[in-house]
């Protein structure tokens, strides 16, 4: 059964002080429906990805927030998997289409993070970690710093190599009118930025962001009255790992990413070499280095050098990663990220990514991670 991305949208990402969570959800949903040339009454079910609306805003039961804004009364399910909430919402939506329960569904992801001070956000995000991690005074930057340290010691990955990931993603964001940070940075700026958790510095870290993204998916050919080039979801797979970092077999890879990717490549009938463009979960620069290795794009331990040589940057040969600017520079409204990735790849495969278009992009991949790697969702799309 072919699943088509009929419509896709992203709100601006950034510090959006005049927009509430509800405003962001409405804007992204209506834009995606408009892009699909459908109206709210065509939506048979809603899936919404979000992590922090309860902790930060006392608002749970987000499903009816979406249907109320659209003026419909259909089934609405909220999906939570920390920073993979968006990707897992896509996964559940795809399952609902494959089961033939529904034929056309809306998936929206949103997060409102800048109403609260950074210390509160840092603590709230730790809800994605384990009890032991919270008691250790660990933060997400510190968990990825532990992974970075292990990767540096095992493979000789350097701080310059990690910085190169941030430099590339900022360059891409400078071409994205919706990104939070639309400017370029240099390796020197990254290396000189404030230390957060050694070896990670401020410019190795994704920011605190408000934003939403939405897609309309269908399994019904007759619904496809859109003028857009068709983009298909060929595989959407997920895997899990231990919640806490200490219980993992390895500190230099994310097993959940590897397992989800293995299943996704098999289902889509493609190999890592076939991927032209990918949106990867670069919550920290080390995360994109591990991602391109775990997804099979580069050999384990070699990715850092490739980034430093300028590979995966727009204009270079072969795979291009994070044309949106990634989590690092486009921004990371956690529940929206996994859906923004699908929206970005959809634009690329339609040939509508404008200044950041990857030429002749035919096969795209999205990798969305929850926590320090306890959930991973890998989606493969084609045109």
């Amino acid at each position, binding site marked *: 059964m072919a699943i088509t991305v009929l419509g896709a949208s992203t709100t601006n990402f950034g510090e959006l002080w005049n927009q509430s969570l509800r405003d962001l959800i409405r804007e992204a949903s209506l834009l995606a429906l408009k892009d699909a040339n459908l109206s709210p009454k065509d939506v048979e079910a809603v899936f919404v990805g979000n992590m922090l609306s309860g902790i930060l805003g006392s608002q749970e039961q987000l499903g009816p927030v979406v249907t109320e804004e659209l003026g419909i009364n259909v089934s609405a399910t909220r999906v939570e998997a920390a920073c993979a909430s968006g990707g897992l919402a896509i996964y559940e939506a795809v399952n609902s289409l494959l089961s033939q329960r529904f034929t056309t569904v809306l998936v929206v992801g949103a997060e409102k993070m800048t109403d609260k001070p*950074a*210390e*509160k956000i*840092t*603590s709230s995000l*730790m809800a994605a970690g*384990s009890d*032991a*991690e*919270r*008691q*250790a*005074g*660990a*933060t997400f*930057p*510190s968990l990825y*710093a*532990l*992974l970075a*340290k*292990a990767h540096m*010691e095992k493979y000789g990955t350097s701080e310059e190599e990690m910085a190169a990931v941030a430099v590339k993603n900022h360059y891409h964001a400078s071409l994205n009118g919706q990104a939070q940070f639309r400017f370029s940075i240099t390796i020197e700026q990254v290396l000189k930025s404030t*230390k*957060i*958790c*050694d*070896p*990670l510095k401020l410019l190795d870290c994704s920011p605190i962001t408000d934003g939403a993204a939405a897609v309309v998916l269908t399994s019904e050919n007759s619904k496809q009255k859109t003028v857009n080039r068709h983009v298909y979801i060929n595989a959407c797979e997920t895997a899990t790992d231990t919640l*806490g*970092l*200490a*219980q993992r077999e390895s*500190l230099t890879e994310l097993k959940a990413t590897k397992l989800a990717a293995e299943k996704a490549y098999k289902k889509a009938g493609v190999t890592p070499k076939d991927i032209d463009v990918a949106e990867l979960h670069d919550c920290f620069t080390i995360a994109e280095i591990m991602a391109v290795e775990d997804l099979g794009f580069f050999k384990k331990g070699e990715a850092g050098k490739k980034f430093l040589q300028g590979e995966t940057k727009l204009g270079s040969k072969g795979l291009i990663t994070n044309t949106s600017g990634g989590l690092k520079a486009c921004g990371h409204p956690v529940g929206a990220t996994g859906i923004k990735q699908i929206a970005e790849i959809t634009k690329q495969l339609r040939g509508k990514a404008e200044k950041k278009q990857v030429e002749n992009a035919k096969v795209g991949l999205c990798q969305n991670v929850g926590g320090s790697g306890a959930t991973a969702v890998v989606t493969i799309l084609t045109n």
Partner: protein
Amino acid sequence: MTSPIKIWREQKKIKNFLGLKGKVVSATLVRVPPLGFSNQAPYFVAIVDMENPAKGGQGKQRLIGQMVDVFETEIKTGQKVEVVYRKLAETDKEDVIHYGIKFRPTSP
């Protein structure tokens, strides 16, 4: 606030870990702490390979925890440590004080 009942449940298990020895696998210096830890920052958080599993545990065991009594600016991989009992995060005036396990370096 951490619920007193949750603390009571944890305390029964903590004694199994006290005095255990291990080696640091990875460590980071946390300069930007979460709520309740600002009076301790900057501090090291480490993942430690334990020599022996805690009482009742089996096989290889790794723990994550905060380091205390560190006077160096870096924790090297392989640093030997032992598990100690310490106060965790700052709590409100009338909350139950939350104790748990941390790591202390032992001679190399």
